[in-house]
């Protein structure tokens, strides 16, 4: 198909699709009045029965915990997949050489940027851990905290410490952590079967609302997901950083 034909077909389809979608959203309940009963029941169940203050985290890891297992596995496969796909055309040796070259060349970034990056890494890590662990109490949880923690690594790279990036992430450790996070979630799910009524049953004591150990398995699963997301996103980021290293070396 020529680009012209494609454009015509595309615009025509989008017009039709647009009309259909506008027609459809007209049938939704008025904005601001969501239709229950799931929306009304879910947060109350989480609070009353599981003592979880943050209903969203409770739903993610308990009520709809099985979905989260699936989502976590998507992340697991995607992280491994991206890593494998990027590794295909390079060897460990060239990366080490490129990193050493980068270190010899000296930092290409401003001192202020590097200083700021170095200073921010600590607080970011702390914030990430806080968000993961307090998932049941305040907005947060494994997914959000995991991304924050992986962001700390990106800060290190942005601060120009490429070699530090290499030292910080022995690849095998990150892959293992990724897999172990996913395995831990699966094991907790199975523990529900063994110790409780069904798979994904919340079998730890529920504690009191507002304390760190409330919600039974919810904080445990939050930590498992936090480990997995950190490792997965770190793996992806470091593989892309490696590609940058290779490219900048070639260009010089």
């Amino acid at each position: 198909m020529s680009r012209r034909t494609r454009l015509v077909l595309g615009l025509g389809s989008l017009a039709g699709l647009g009309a259909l979608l506008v027609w459809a959203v007209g049938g939704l309940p008025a904005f601001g009045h969501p239709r229950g009963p799931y929306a009304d029941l879910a947060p109350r169940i989480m609070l009353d029965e599981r003592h979880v203050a943050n209903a969203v985290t409770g739903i993610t890891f308990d009520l709809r915990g099985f979905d989260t297992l699936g989502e976590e596995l998507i992340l697991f496969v995607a992280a491994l997949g991206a890593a494998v796909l990027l590794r295909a055309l390079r060897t460990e040796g060239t990366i080490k050489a490129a990193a050493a070259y980068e270190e010899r060349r000296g930092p290409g970034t401003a001192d202020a940027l590097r200083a700021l990056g170095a200073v921010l890494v600590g607080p970011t890590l702390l914030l990430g851990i806080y968000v993961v662990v307090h998932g049941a109490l305040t907005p947060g949880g494994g997914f959000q905290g995991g991304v924050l923690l992986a962001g700390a690594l990106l800060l290190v790279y942005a601060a120009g410490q490429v070699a530090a990036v290499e030292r910080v992430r022995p690849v095998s450790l990150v892959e293992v952590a990724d897999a172990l996070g996913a395995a831990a979630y699966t094991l907790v799910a199975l523990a529900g079967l063994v110790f409780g009524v069904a798979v994904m049953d919340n079998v730890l004591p529920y504690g009191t609302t507002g304390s760190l150990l409330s919600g039974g398995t919810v904080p445990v699963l939050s930590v498992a997901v936090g480990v997995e997301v950190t490792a997965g996103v770190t793996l992806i980021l470091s593989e892309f950083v490696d590609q940058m290293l290779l490219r900048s070396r070639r260009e010089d």
Partner: protein
Amino acid sequence: MSVAPLAVLVPVLAATLLAATSPFVARRRLAGVVAVLAALASAVLCAAALAEAHGDTLVVWFGGWEPRAGVAVGIDFAVDPIGAAMALFVAVLGVAALVMCIEVIQVEDNLFDAIALVFIAAMVGYCLTGDLFNLFVFFELMSVCAYVLVGYEIRKRAPLEGSLTFAITNSIGSILLLCGIALLYGRTGALNLAQMGRALAEGPADGLVVVSYALVAGGLLVKAAAVPFHFWTADAYAVAPTPVGLLLGGAFSELGLFGLARVQWTVFHDVLAPHEAELRAILVGLGVLTAIVGAVMCAAQHHLKRMLAFATISHVGLFLVGIGLLDAAGLAGAAIWIVGDGLVKAALFASVGLLNDRFATVEEAELHGRGREIGGIGVLFCAGALAVASLPPFGPFLGKTLVEDAALTAGYAWVPAVMVVVSALTGGALLRVGVRVFLGRGVPAPEDPHSARAEGDRGGAGEREDEASLATVPALLWGPAVALMAAALAWGLVPGVVAAAGRAAERFVDVHSYAGLVLDGRPLPAVSSTLHGPGLTGWLYAAASVAGAVVVALAALAGVRDRAPRAGLRALETLRGLHSGRPGDYAAFTAAGVAVLGGLVALAVG
């Protein structure tokens, strides 16, 4: 306590452990054996779930979250006989694929097996779930595993391209599906299939219902590779490593149809009931279009894997006709046919993998006559080609006759004739290849200017390329091929499979009892089915398609292409040109397809 969730969790656990040990203990054979065992365990658990169901539906609530006053608060697995049978089928194909992986896939880590296990687990979970968002999650998981597995050995050009177009097109499908789910959640406030159906039935079939149906069906049909969403299929299936291609061609697309059937019945059946006849016309029409386009493209191919991909597309069209008849008989026929055809397709993929392993090519022209050394596989291949053309007593024959009977009962008298033609074309094309490759007879295939070849891209990815031909064909390759073919034969011969499928289909379509069981805990009433085996018309149609296949093959071998009318060849070239390999084109067709589908359903309902 049901074992159904374990069928998903066991392979997942095995996969994570394989991945965790990958940097330390990467012994290929050991990883492969562990993977096969995990898949086998999953298959056994699926069979146990099927037996546990006893022909009824079994409901398992995750986390013990039972429904409250008819409102589902948790996620459930609703294991009905058809779902459990599909899950078992997928697991069995998975075992065969993983056995082949041990021999075929040459990588230094355990990650391929880990991802393949997650792929299988996702497909099993997809078949068993009773929650629409959970279905979507498994749908995404299946897709992502497939993107990675298809592009795994990315050193060659074609797998890279195939993986890209695959990933882009299927991502669009997923996004459309999620939009549809969001709309349905907005209307019904539920994510559970049964509850959604109940809530939707309380309202009118207005714009939201029509469009959400089009979006959900569109997303699922992208995976199912129905026309015009099918363009990615040949690109991806052709470049995937053989065991992955086996799973894709045998199970992946068929699961798209299964999802459509499941959602169609549990969610949309009541609300769209007054317009059933029009909906039937749309789905049957779509199925027939897919079948014909797939068959024509299949016959025009000379790259064996692409040919199998188009044969898959064509047969997906036929299954869609069975499902689109919107009754239990058509559904039962489609279910039997999907399993039978899937087994045959998988055996054919395995045979092609054997050829690739031995001769490092899957081009018909290059393989001409070389298959004589492995004549046993030739017998298998030709038997498979004829089974595709519904040779009795293989499984596909049984399924086809049931769908034909259902079509005749529903008043679609012209459909069986179309089915005969399509089966003859696809079976004939495969038979022609079998004769050319394994007997060396007939006019040799032309050098195909369109073929997917570039710089050492030979047939597939991650597969051995040493030119030294083997004294014997490795057992790990022909073993699964023979076993799958034998299973396809057995499937057609199992006594009582028709009656069981009939009852299972009655169960599937009885959505009120389903909702009663899932949401209120009401036990299911007994079902009976009047479905019977093939009658005289069935045998006659089968004879016609087998004869047709032989005629098509002979005509091709005699060089009919050179004498074909110019206009026909030009039309064929235009059709082939549409399959351009460009993601922009495919995206445009997907958008157009969903818009047209939405328009048609709107007309049907309005």
